[in-house]
């Protein structure tokens, strides 16, 4: 009902939709860009785009999913622009040269067991920040957005094989970083 009303131009209905979904849209932007200020700006931009494109929303997915895809695409554009402005990351070079993830020792003990929620969040946050945007994006799209390999490949403009290797690297790197943090007991 709210979506229909907003499609007809009802601004109050759209405001209600923003109130209901704002945290989820912001959270997705934050997971991808790792910067609170940029995530706020990008989620705001997504809502403006959402309003403008609302007449094209056919209801094939939920409104929340539709909005999430808008913010994901905006974040990807933003990250690509950022990447063009700086050198290739070491992570990407490792991936190109065959990947170090194959040689990483397997983490056998859950490094996050017994942690407080806030502490766990902080560690995951740190570990996500250590990944290149390509690896982090694949992880976010798969783990948070529940996208299949094929869909991720389409969204990121790469092959399914690249998605698989990036996801594998990202997961293994995350496990290694979390285990490292556990040993250090610093963060």
């Amino acid at each position: 009902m709210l979506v229909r009303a907003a499609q007809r131009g009802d601004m109050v209905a759209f405001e209600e939709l923003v109130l209901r979904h704002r945290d989820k849209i912001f959270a997705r932007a934050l997971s991808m860009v790792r910067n609170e200020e940029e995530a706020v700006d990008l989620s705001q931009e997504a809502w403006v785009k959402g309003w403008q494109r609302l007449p094209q929303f056919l209801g094939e997915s939920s409104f929340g999913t539709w909005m999430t895809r808008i913010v994901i695409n905006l974040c990807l554009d933003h990250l690509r622009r950022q990447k063009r402005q700086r050198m290739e990351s070491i992570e990407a070079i490792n991936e190109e040269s065959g990947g170090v993830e194959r040689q990483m020792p397997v983490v056998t003990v859950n490094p996050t067991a017994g942690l407080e929620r806030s502490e766990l969040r902080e560690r995951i946050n740190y570990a996500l920040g250590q990944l290149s945007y390509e690896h982090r994006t694949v992880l976010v799209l798969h783990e948070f957005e529940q996208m299949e390999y094929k869909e991720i490949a389409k969204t990121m403009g790469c092959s399914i094989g690249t998605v698989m290797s990036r996801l594998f690297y990202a997961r293994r790197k995350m496990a290694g970083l979390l285990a490292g943090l556990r040993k250090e007991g610093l963060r």
Partner: protein
Amino acid sequence: MMDYDSQLRLQACLDGELEAREAAEFEAWLTKDPEAQALLEELKMTRGVLAGFEAGVKLPESPEFFWSKIRREIEREPRHAAESRGASLFAGWRRWLAPAAGAVAAGMVALLLLAPSKKQGPEVETSLADAGAFTYYDFAARTTLVWLSYPAEEELAANEEGDTLE
């Protein structure tokens, strides 16, 4: 040590990306390989750790302030303007197409007209005072020909006419 393809297949199996038969075969093989089992556990652990990570994230701005910014942007660029932007861009493009094509055509004609003069090719000149006289200059051959179409042609024509009549 597991090869890379097997590692990626293991992950695909975990993510439900393998066909049912392939997944069953892979799972059967998995039970015999402790290294693969350990890797599978690690991948599961990472997936588990990330589950629910975004759940508690809150927008660091008040709802009123956030909405006021969105509303301002929406009012600055109304929906119909954004929708018609694509169409107006095309219309604008079409508006410029005709003059641009005209300019290109005029340019090409000018080039064709100007190009021979640079080469100093042959010239044909007619006298305004005498329309029956043509002068032909060939600069390369350094030759000048003057062609007078009368009175010989007129006489010839008269003769031919006479011949016909007679």
